[in-house]
């Protein structure tokens, strides 16, 4: 069964996938065919190519017959068979993290009703300063060895800014090491925004990007994210957002969308842009869980989410700001949805080095181990090569994704929550909305906004996209390319959120091909 959402007809049958023993070697595909109204979307993410074809052309692509000869179809096939310039592949060799995550504490000063990190009951132990310094120094040394200059450090929590000493030490140690080694420091943080104006000023001056959680106007935000003892937090978070919006830092406002707020997404987006002047607005749908259910919150219907998410994208684009739905990363192909597999390393308060910032008990519940090493208070950093390799290849083991055209763009979602056996082997609400949003963004890039409108206004057509059983189509690319696995490239891992500084250099689609 699909994850719960309203108004859905029975899902279309999907091929059963053996999820009992997920294999790291799940096959990846190069070209996909997705039904879009009365046409088909051809999508080759590694080539940054998309096209729309009619039914006869789609049949020809599937059967392999009639692909030769004069005409647009043959031209399309020729383009699809050109080997890509690069293919993302698992990292190997010495680790040089894409970014260093610092988790000064798991403690938090809010009691968000859906938080799976423990909130006020989480362990409030602060990271030892020597551990923080050792991690920073190790990262700097790695960058120098790899001849890289970008020194990216991102603070997570809990709420990182309730450990101000650790933050101050790390910020200045990073800057000092950057100055010493001619590196360029980039500081980021994910935060709830509940801190003083003085701290906000420091963040605004020293940080490059901040992801601030704000679920909307008070009627949503205070219901979802109350302070301790149930007190509202909107006023202080809003003050922080206004202050940071005026300052040099790139502010990304992240809203968690529920079934109650999904109909207001465009309004929330507009209000955020007008009120706070962010660089980006990030929309996430509520992750289903016991805590959320207990609070009476429900996951939004994925079809409604897709409709309003695209509405928000358009509105934000008109206002010159980025809207981001993290799973619909159409600008460059990737192997992983999140830091896992990108060599990003998160240092926990107790000195563990991990590939993931979720709670260890959540990994273990899925039979996963995301630890890859340790940072000791005496300054030693040790990496377990086997564990690192396991983390690097974990994103490959997503059997449900094999049939999905988003395998290179979404790359499977959270490896803990969206990977069997941690979830259904059939498309979840997350999958459906991701497929729809991605399809609409590709249509946008093809100049087909009107088609996207038509799709979003047709529930049956949306369901065909959302639940299409098998997207990959083999048009002989494997032979032409010599195998995807053989293509060697260093893919630049992306940060876990979109931001104004991550400006894409090329669009995914190269043109609109009308055939027949």
């Amino acid at each position, binding site marked *: 069964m699909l994850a719960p959402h309203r108004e859905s007809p029975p899902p279309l049958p999907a091929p059963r996938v053996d999820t009992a023993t997920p294999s790291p070697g799940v096959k990846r595909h190069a070209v996909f065919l997705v039904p879009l109204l009365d046409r088909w979307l051809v999508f080759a993410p590694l080539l940054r190519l998309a096209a729309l074809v009619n039914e006869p052309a789609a049949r020809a692509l599937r059967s392999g017959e009639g692909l030769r000869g004069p005409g647009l179809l043959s031209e399309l096939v020729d383009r699809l068979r050109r080997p890509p310039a690069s293919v993302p592949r698992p990292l190997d060799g010495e680790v040089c993290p894409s970014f260093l995550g610092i988790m000064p504490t798991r403690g938090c000063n809010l009691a968000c009703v859906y938080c799976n990190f423990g909130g006020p009951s989480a362990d409030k132990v602060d990271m030892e*300063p*020597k551990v*923080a*310094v050792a991690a920073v120094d190790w990262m700097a040394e790695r960058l120098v060895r790899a001849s890289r200059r970008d020194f990216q450090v991102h603070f997570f929590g809990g709420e990182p800014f309730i450990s101000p*000493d650790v933050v*101050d*030490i790390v910020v*200045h*140690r990073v*800057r*000092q090491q*950057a*100055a*010493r080694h001619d590196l*360029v*420091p980039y500081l980021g943080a994910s935060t709830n925004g509940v801190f003083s104006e*003085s701290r906000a000023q*420091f963040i605004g*001056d*020293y940080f490059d990007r901040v992801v601030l959680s704000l679920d909307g106007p008070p009627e949503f935000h205070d219901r979802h994210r109350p302070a301790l003892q149930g007190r509202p937090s909107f006023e202080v978070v809003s003050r922080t957002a206004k202050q940071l919006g005026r300052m040099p830092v790139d502010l990304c406002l992240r809203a968690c969308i529920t079934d109650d707020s999904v109909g207001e997404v465009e309004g929330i987006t507009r209000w955020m842009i007008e009120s706070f002047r962010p660089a980006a607005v990030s929309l996430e749908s509520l992750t289903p869980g016991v805590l959320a259910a207990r609070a009476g919150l429900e996951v939004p219907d994925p079809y409604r989410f897709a409709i309003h998410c695209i509405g928000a994208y358009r509105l934000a684009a008109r206002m010159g700001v980025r809207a981001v739905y993290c799973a619909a990363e159409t600008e460059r192909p990737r192997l992983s949805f999140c830091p896992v597999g990108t060599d990003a390393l998160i240092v926990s308060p107790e000195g563990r080095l991990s590939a993931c910032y979720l709670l260890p008990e959540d990994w273990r519940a899925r039979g996963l181990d995301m630890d890859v090493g340790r940072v000791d208070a005496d300054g030693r950093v040790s990496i377990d090569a086997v564990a690192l390799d396991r983390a690097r290849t974990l994103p490959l083991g997503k059997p449900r994704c094999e049939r999905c055209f988003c395998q290179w763009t979404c790359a499977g979602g959270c490896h803990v929550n969206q990977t069997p056996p941690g979830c259904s082997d059939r498309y979840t609400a997350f999958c459906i909305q991701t497929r729809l949003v991605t399809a609409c963004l590709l249509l946008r890039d093809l100049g087909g906004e009107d088609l996207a409108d038509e799709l979003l206004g047709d529930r049956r057509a949306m369901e065909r996209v959302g639940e299409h059983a098998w997207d990959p189509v083999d048009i002989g690319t494997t032979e032409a390319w010599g195998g995807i696995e053989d293509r060697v490239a260093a893919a630049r891992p992306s940060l876990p959120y979109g931001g104004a500084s991550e400006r894409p250099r090329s669009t995914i689609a190269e043109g609109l091909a009308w055939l027949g």
Partner: protein
Amino acid sequence: MTDYRVGRGVRWSVGRVTLTLADAKGNVRTLRYPEAAVFDLVSRGRPFAKVVSLTAHILSLDAAGAEALVRSTLEEWADGGFLERV
């Protein structure tokens, strides 16, 4: 006890790895590390003992070394007119 107060008209802005300081007379000073860290901590009102302990960690100094550094830096800024002795 020697107290210091920021000089009248002293302003600053944060660079990528530096801090630019300017006084009312137009004298400009670029603070690099370790000075930039000390300035940030004192300008945000951190108590002296905290400034010393954080500086010790930032620069991997022992407590005595950090305290000596902070004291001498404050004195130097006072000599340069960016701080006033109170």
